[in-house]
């Protein structure tokens, strides 16, 4: 009996807590309304919020910093949450985090930037509860058909099309051979194996030799060290065989620490990283000293890379995208949501078309971006950024 009473008491206490939580924002709202009524100030926090959820700092730096940047840029508007460290093991927590954002009556848009799958049910629930909230993925990798059906705007990098563009770029840079490093758990992913096949096709079309090498798998046991150690041994062998007019592509980000390091020594070509960004591998390999105030200044970082490339006699032999796509997409999504809310836009008519999306990227970030709709879906757009040559 005692136990039951305890449980009852606890349950009561919890409901009160919940009620209190739900009650609080209302008070704020009441307090805010007269304030904004009296003096209309630009600086005052508007009465809406945009929620963004990213992985934690240690699991993915870029998305986390993107969320963080947006909070700093739009204080009071952007609310930044992080998924649990080990999302796959705690999907329930992740989903409830997504749904919890919709509890705030001021919430007008929810953005998920994660590069993982399994989040769609959370967004579906948000839509059931609050059809007025704009949902954006930037990106998540659930089933595209369902995403197009249940999410308002889906943004992603055009992984498959890069199979063509990377090889063409490498060819333009003077590559005669294209080497593709990957491993089983990656090749089992549809996007990656599709991209590899496209690369092979394109290389053959352009008259380049396509070489495929499989490395130790970093996801089955011993981590990335054996894979990188193998690259250290294998890259010089391959370059000795095919000469420096070879482009090396690896399907896994950590590979680039070794690939770029060897590129500086052996002078081969790296047309594009798997996740093209100046902030990955380049700073490590080139020992860049980026001052704290320059930490998000990509022009400065790119200039530093160009300089180091010149020192190594590698001018024009390294290329990438001017800013990391993993920072671009989440920030772009926030800006897009803010624009749509501020202008009360009709998503289907005003926002979701190639002309607007491309122009919006140029206007807000100053980089050329090419969006294409995925399989003719009107709310699923995949992008490729303009290249920068170091």
């Amino acid at each position, binding site marked *: 009996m005692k136990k039951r009473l305890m449980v009852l008491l606890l349950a009561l206490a919890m409901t009160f807590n919940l009620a209190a939580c739900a009650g609080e924002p209302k008070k704020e709202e009441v307090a805010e309304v007269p304030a904004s009524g009296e003096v209309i100030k630009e600086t005052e926090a508007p009465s809406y919020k945009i929620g963004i959820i990213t992985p934690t700092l240690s699991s993915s730096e870029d998305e986390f910093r993107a969320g963080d940047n947006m909070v700093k840029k739009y204080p009071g508007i952007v609310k930044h949450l992080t998924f649990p460290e080990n999302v796959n093991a705690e999907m329930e927590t992740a989903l409830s985090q997504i749904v919890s954002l919709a509890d705030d009556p001021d919430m007008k848009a929810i953005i998920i930037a994660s590069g993982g799958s399994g989040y769609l049910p959370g967004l579906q629930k948000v839509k059931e509860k609050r059809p007025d909230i704009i949902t954006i993925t930037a990106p998540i990798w659930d089933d595209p058909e369902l995403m197009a059906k249940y999410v308002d705007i889906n943004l992603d990098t055009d992984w498959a099309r890069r199979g063509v563009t990377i090889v063409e770029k490498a060819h333009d840079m003077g590559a005669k051979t294209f080497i593709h490093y990957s491993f*089983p758990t990656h090749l089992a992913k549809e996007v990656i194996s599709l991209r590899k096949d496209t690369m092979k096709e394109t290389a053959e079309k352009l008259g380049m030799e396509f070489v495929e090498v499989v490395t130790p*798998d970093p996801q089955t046991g011993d981590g*990335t060290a054996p894979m990188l150690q193998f690259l250290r041994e294998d890259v010089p062998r391959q370059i000795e065989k095919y000469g420096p007019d070879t482009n090396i592509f690896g399907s896994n980000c950590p590979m680039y620490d070794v690939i770029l390091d060897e590129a500086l020594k052996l002078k081969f070509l790296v047309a594009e990283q798997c996740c093209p960004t100046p*902030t990955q591998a380049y700073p490590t390999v080139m020992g*860049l000293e980026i001052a704290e105030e320059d*930490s998000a200044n990509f022009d400065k970082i790119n200039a530093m890379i160009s300089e180091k490339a010149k020192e190594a006699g590698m001018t024009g032999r390294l290329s990438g995208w001017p800013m990391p796509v993993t920072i671009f997409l989440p920030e772009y999504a926030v800006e897009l949501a803010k624009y749509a809310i501020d202008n009360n836009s009709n998503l289907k008519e005003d926002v979701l078309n190639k002309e607007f999306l491309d122009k919006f990227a140029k206007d807000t970030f100053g980089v050329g971006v090419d969006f294409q709709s995925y399989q003719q879906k009107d709310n699923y757009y995949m992008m490729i950024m303009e290249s920068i040559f170091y």
Partner: protein
Amino acid sequence: MKNKKVQIPQIIICIYLLILLVVVNVIGIPIVGIINESFIKWAMNGVLVLSLVPMINVGAGMNFGMPIGISAGLIGLCIAIELRLQGVIGFITAMIVGSLIAIVFGLCYSKILNRLKGKEEIIGTFAGFSFIPIMNFFWTLVPFKNRQMLYPVGGKGLRPKISLKNYFEGILDNSLVVKIGEFQIPVALILFFLILCFLIQYLYRTRVGHVMTAVSENEKFAQISGVNINKYRTKGIILSTILAAIGICVYSQSYGFVELYDGPFMMAFPAVSAILIGGASSKSATVKQVLIGTYLLQTTYLLSIPVANAILVPEITEVLRMIITNGIILYAFLYKGGSKKYGKI
């Protein structure tokens, strides 16, 4: 010591290695290059394998908690980079600072292991695994100032990988390289490794070493003879931790990067496989077993990937390679264990 004869696991691995060598020759991969690389791989991983010996020989089992010692070494490396110490001075500073920290870490680690005698291997695994998140906090929060090692975007916290190029990359690999024809022997690296091996070998000829061995062979007997068991265990564990710290310094200078965060996570396992292949048991290990085991295992790894890539369909190479390499190791042990306990297979 006891295991003087060449055992079945070594024979099987040797045969596998020979087959690989023949195939390498047939496919036309330059064999000299591979042999040169095998020396580097041998010595760069060797010290980490050697670090298992002291703990095994005081009866504290295989050091699955190696990430603890490795973390100490990583701190040493980071401090050397923070102070921008280059060349030999940087490398020596990294090892000294790493060792000092390893003494503290080893002391704490031995306190845990001495309370939970007999379950060291599983406790060590957990201690090592749980130590990594603690270190992750440290790496993100440590107030280092050298911007070459900080996150490029946020500007705070250490990068997951720090390049040693401006400091002491290849300091052992590339100094005193003796060229005999096409062969290149990294004398400094191998000498450094062998000196450490010799020191450990020498330790087991001294009185302290004898007592340590006695503890691992028969703890009760040693206790009755008036040996303070925990004292010797603590010494052995600290020594293992220090060697792991030095080991990661040697490994990193060869690898070219300092790998933080989850880098040390799985490092204990290849080391343990190597010493087992060398013929060690969880109660006794010798330096000779370290030398043989590391060379065999690392060269097998070195050879199997290019061979698999050359003769198999790319998509399946890695899977088959894992099955064959690990399968052979497993078979080797099965054969040994089987014949001992249950008669012949």
